[in-house]
């Protein structure tokens, strides 16, 4: 289990290689990469800035990872989230779930993202190319996705 909050970009292949190095018990690695879209509310996005709560962010991501490991037989996992200014097309988040078999890895990766979306203390601020912008509102659909796991569906 590992979490990392950083301004630097990540290399998905390098992260998978590091996670699986020297191991033969991992049969499936699922990764999810989130990217900054170039459009928001019908406007062209110039940039996005990610703010977070240092200390709680790492603690909350670790709690989310622990919960995933309690629910699925995971051999390894990783969450990387970027902070600071980002441009359209930039990678923003990486989730990696490794297991002996694919189903656990797929489900755990989805779970990690759904929980991260509603619990990890990050906030996005958007600036459009016309100079307008502001803090992004939370989505009800993200809360629904998290509650689905709580209901055991």
């Amino acid at each position, binding site marked *: 289990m590992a979490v990392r909050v950083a301004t630097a970009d990540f290399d998905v292949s390098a992260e998978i290689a590091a996670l699986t190095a020297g191991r033969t018990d991992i049969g499936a690695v699922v990764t999810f990469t989130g990217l900054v879209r170039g459009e928001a509310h019908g406007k062209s996005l110039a940039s996005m800035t990610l703010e*977070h709560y240092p*200390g709680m962010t790492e*603690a*909350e991501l670790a709690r989310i990872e622990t919960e995933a490991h309690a629910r699925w037989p995971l051999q390894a996992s990783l969450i990387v*989230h970027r902070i600071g200014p980002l441009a359209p097309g930039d990678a923003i*988040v990486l989730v990696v779930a490794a297991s002996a078999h694919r189903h656990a890895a797929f489900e755990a990766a989805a779970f990690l993202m759904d929980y991260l979306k509603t619990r990890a*203390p990050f906030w996005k601020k958007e600036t459009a190319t016309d100079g307008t912008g502001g803090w992004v509102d939370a989505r009800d659909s*993200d809360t629904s996705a998290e509650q689905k796991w709580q209901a055991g569906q």
Partner: protein
Amino acid sequence: MTIRLLYFAWVREKLGRSEEIVTLPPEITRVDALMAWLAGRDDVHADVFGRPGVIRAAIDQVHAQPSASIAGAREIAFFPPVTGG
């Protein structure tokens, strides 16, 4: 009780500060009471803290409900619903 308050995102921007140290009256024992106390400071605070359900809280870096006790807390953070990922 003396406690450290932290503010994030638009809560931080509206209040014009990212943190402060406050000394609370002894009758303030829960998150919701603390928010009501903060809302009573001035119009800006009333605008931020006077809307139950909008602002989220964390006690010592763990998510907390409005009814949560703040007894023994070192650090309480207030912020909008999170939007990472």
